[in-house]
């Protein structure tokens, strides 16, 4: 496994080689979609599983009866279903890739954040928590995420999914522009 292409500290060579990696990975995910649609009969998607798992965490707040009475969780009860197993597989797959490459590294504050907002771990954790809450609320409201809407819905030419892609990128571009203003 050569790591020369991925290393940012390498000096720039005179004739940089075209990096096919993102295209190869994208094509791989496309082929994986064929298997998801044709064999598993369940498109790639991530966030529905969070809703199922969230019901477990909601018990301390609203009680088991509150969870049982909730209309949303009635339709999406806690179970070790396809989506939850898929998430477990996703975690293990990424872990296997990292361990094979020897690139496991504890990261408290990412460099792009550190350059803009400094190295405060608490600040980054607070932002990550609220960012995570907002992204999941948005994903459930929209009915999917980058995988379920973006890739699986996009490739089915769904109107909802292309609307999602357009609005999501436009909003992200504007906020990013504001957040990294002057950098």
């Amino acid at each position: 496994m050569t790591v020369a292409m991925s290393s940012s500290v390498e000096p720039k060579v005179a004739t940089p080689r075209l990096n096919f990696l993102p295209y190869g990975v994208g094509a791989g995910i496309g082929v994986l979609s064929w298997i998801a649609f044709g064999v598993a009969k369940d498109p790639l998607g991530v966030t529905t599983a969070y809703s199922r798992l969230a019901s477990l965490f909601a018990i301390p707040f609203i009680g088991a009866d509150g969870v049982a009475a909730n209309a949303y969780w009635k339709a999406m009860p806690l179970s070790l279903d396809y989506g939850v197993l898929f998430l477990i597989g996703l975690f293990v797959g990424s872990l296997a890739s990292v361990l094979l490459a020897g690139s496991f590294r504890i990261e408290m504050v990412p460099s792009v954040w550190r350059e803009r907002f400094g190295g405060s771990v608490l600040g980054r954790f607070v932002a990550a928590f609220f960012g995570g809450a907002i992204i999941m609320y948005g994903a459930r409201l929209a009915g999917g995420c980058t995988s379920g809407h973006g890739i699986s819905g996009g490739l089915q030419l769904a109107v909802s999914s292309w609307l999602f892609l357009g609005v999501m990128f436009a909003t992200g571009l504007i906020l990013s522009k504001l957040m990294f203003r002057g950098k």
Partner: protein
Amino acid sequence: MTAVLLPLAIGFAFGFLLNRGKVTDCNVIENQFRLRDFTVLKVMMTAIVVGGIGVLVMVDAGAAKYYIKDANLFGVALGAALFGIGMVVYGYCPGTAIGAIATGSVHALVGAFGMIAGAILYALSFDWLKAHILPVGAFGKIRLPDITGIADPYWFVALALGALAFFVWLERRGANA
């Protein structure tokens, strides 16, 4: 047995690919929105074109079917706007976050608890949303070929050529080659 192993295997391959494609890196995602690194768009557009052509062939052959999400235009637009905000603040989307935790990202793990909180808030506000937000501009399970009258193959020819032209332009420009 297959019911357990198949989603695990597909998830495993997905997580492996996300990590190899570097999209489990918060910096790569943030720099996509800053237009400094186009890895995310390269991965997504290639996946949509390659995946879509194969799925179209399978659907035409009767070997697969579509799973279209409802076009609740207001809810989808509002949710997508929140999603874009969350993605820039968090630096991950829900899937890449899980992959990132496996790479040692502690802030991704903290954000995962935020995602659980967001999912709980959604479930608690679902009755209100269902009554007031989701029915606004609800057109059901519609596809672009339905509303435009342009058949599927033309869409994929256009998407493939558009993506190719975009990639050639990107690579010539030298933005994160």
